């Protein structure tokens, strides 16, 4: 912890960055985001296994960006999010400095995003075994049973969009669901409205989701919406060999080969 605090303090003292996004102790024994702007703020920073909130969601937040150059204390899922965001031109070496918090409790000051990319590629994105079991259970259901299961699970959704707000990849200024002329997705939270929202969310994240579970953790109603993303992660692995966020390269859902064996894509 001291190593982390000293590094952050040094960054703020040297004015290398204007703000450091990190974790602090919150209420109810849960860590929360803190925005350190003065060297003495570094003393608030913490890091332990409870720090699962994906801080990368703040990088694209208008009010945080307005502070200028930032640094972020980044766990593996946060680092993955950062590289994905960089590949989508949302951050770059000029506006973000990454302090890595590695799975084996090291604190690494990365010189640039390319180093972060090299680091995250050491770890494969692989869904947890308990979710693999949950997906297998769903696969074994009949089509009707599976449909009914999802309708029932999505029924409580009241469209607070906490899942969207907590997801680093949902940074659009105006989301498709916020359009009402035309209204692409039904606004009310009824059966069809909920279904369309959650399917749209999952599909927009295909090939981009880095499996951090921020969406499910944010849901105040405990809806297992991350299962949709995990299904698509597994499908991407099976049909396209999986993916890793990359600074340069093609995205799974926005590229095709002219000589693709499938007809529909031509």
């Amino acid at each position, binding site marked *: 912890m001291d190593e982390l605090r000293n590094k952050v303090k040094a960054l703020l003292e040297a004015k290398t960055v204007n703000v450091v996004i990190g974790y602090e102790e919150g209420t109810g024994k849960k860590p*929360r*985001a803190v925005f350190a702007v003065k060297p003495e703020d570094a003393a608030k920073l913490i890091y332990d296994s409870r720090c699962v909130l994906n801080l990368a969601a703040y990088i694209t937040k208008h*009010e945080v960006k307005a502070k200028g150059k930032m640094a972020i204390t980044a766990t593996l899922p946060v680092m993955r999010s950062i590289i994905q965001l960089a590949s989508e031109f949302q951050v770059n070496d000029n506006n973000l400095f990454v302090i890595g918090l590695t799975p084996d409790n090291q604190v690494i000051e990365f010189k640039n995003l390319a180093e972060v990319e090299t680091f995250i590629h050491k770890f494969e994105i692989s869904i947890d075994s308990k979710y693999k079991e949950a997906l297998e259970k769903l696969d074994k259901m009949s089509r009707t049973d599976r449909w009914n299961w999802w309708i029932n699970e999505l029924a409580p959704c009241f469209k607070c969009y906490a899942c969207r707000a907590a997801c680093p990849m949902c940074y659009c200024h105006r989301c498709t669901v916020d359009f009402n002329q035309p209204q692409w997705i039904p606004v009310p939270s009824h059966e069809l409205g909920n279904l369309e929202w959650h399917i749209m969310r999952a599909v927009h994240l295909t090939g981009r989701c880095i499996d951090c579970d921020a969406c499910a953790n944010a849901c105040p109603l405990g809806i297992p919406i991350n299962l949709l993303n995990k299904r698509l992660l597994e499908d991407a692995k099976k049909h396209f060999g999986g993916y890793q966020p990359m600074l340069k390269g093609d995205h799974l859902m926005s590229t095709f080969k002219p000589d693709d064996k499938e007809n529909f894509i031509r």
Partner: protein
Amino acid sequence: MTIDKRILRKDSLEKLFNILRENNRTIFAPVEHNGKISFKASGSFSSVATDYIQTTQSSKEAAFPRTEKILDYTKTRDNINASPFDHNQIPEVVIWGVRPCDAMGIAELSAIFNWDLKDEIYNQRLAKTTVIGFSCMKADESCFCTSVGGNPGNTEGSDILLTRMGEGGDLIAEIITDKGAAIVSFAGELFQKSEEGQKEKYLADVPVKFNRDEIRKKLDKYFESDIWVKQSLRCIGCGACAYVCPTCACFDIQDEIHGKSGSRVRCWDSCGFSQFTIHTSGHNPREVQSQRWRQRIMHKFSYMPERLDVYGCTGCGRCSRACPVDMNILEHLTSIQEVTL
């Protein structure tokens, strides 16, 4: 009317539930799903959750559903036929297991829905709703009803308030309103006349954390304070706090169009959303989160008392529990009380 105090034996609770069902009451009761407890139309007593401090969602949906179809229409060549809301479709509802903070919230919600225009659908739903409150025997660190005019055994807003005399014990029943008396009239034998039991000693201890009138006075001068920027930086602008709140009443009107016919629907909305106040011109008077967060606090602790003579917060603590990023309202209110300009 004066409060009629009776005793409900512990095994009479299930009988009461069944008698209500037999008398065509739709019962909204706390039911557990995925580790969260919410009010749901419940058909069996065994499905009703008993061990909870507070439900995840408030009971406001009984009178203010998240999605309310207010009219259907069909367009013909030269006319539009609209069929308005059918009031006969509103069921007789009993909300079961409402905490006193939620029951108190009904008056606050009603103040908004009757401020200027009297909202017919809301009022008719409420008229057909009976509230069976359950006093709180335990509280958690998010609870602060005693700081906003409530208490764990508050009768305000309930038609009947039940207080358990210890874990698994018999219940003190306070019959507060005519609606409550109506229930006693068809389940009379369950409500025994008795003088036993003082509810106070069974109630949860909820310490007073701040003075809401003091906060209100401060807010008059704090519109331009930088406290809003500081507090709201970690807010991610979702609507979880508003949707679980027993007094948040903002809604949006949407048309769902299917060719030549369609429906007009009222759906929940939230002042925390970035596009809540966006104008047709593109101008947004609340363009940053700090302005939206300020609105939330100001509305509940300044504008509502000023215009409606009620505060907009019951201290239920739901927003703090539901917030994915720990925007703890009690912590923020306490810091507003402590700060000096």
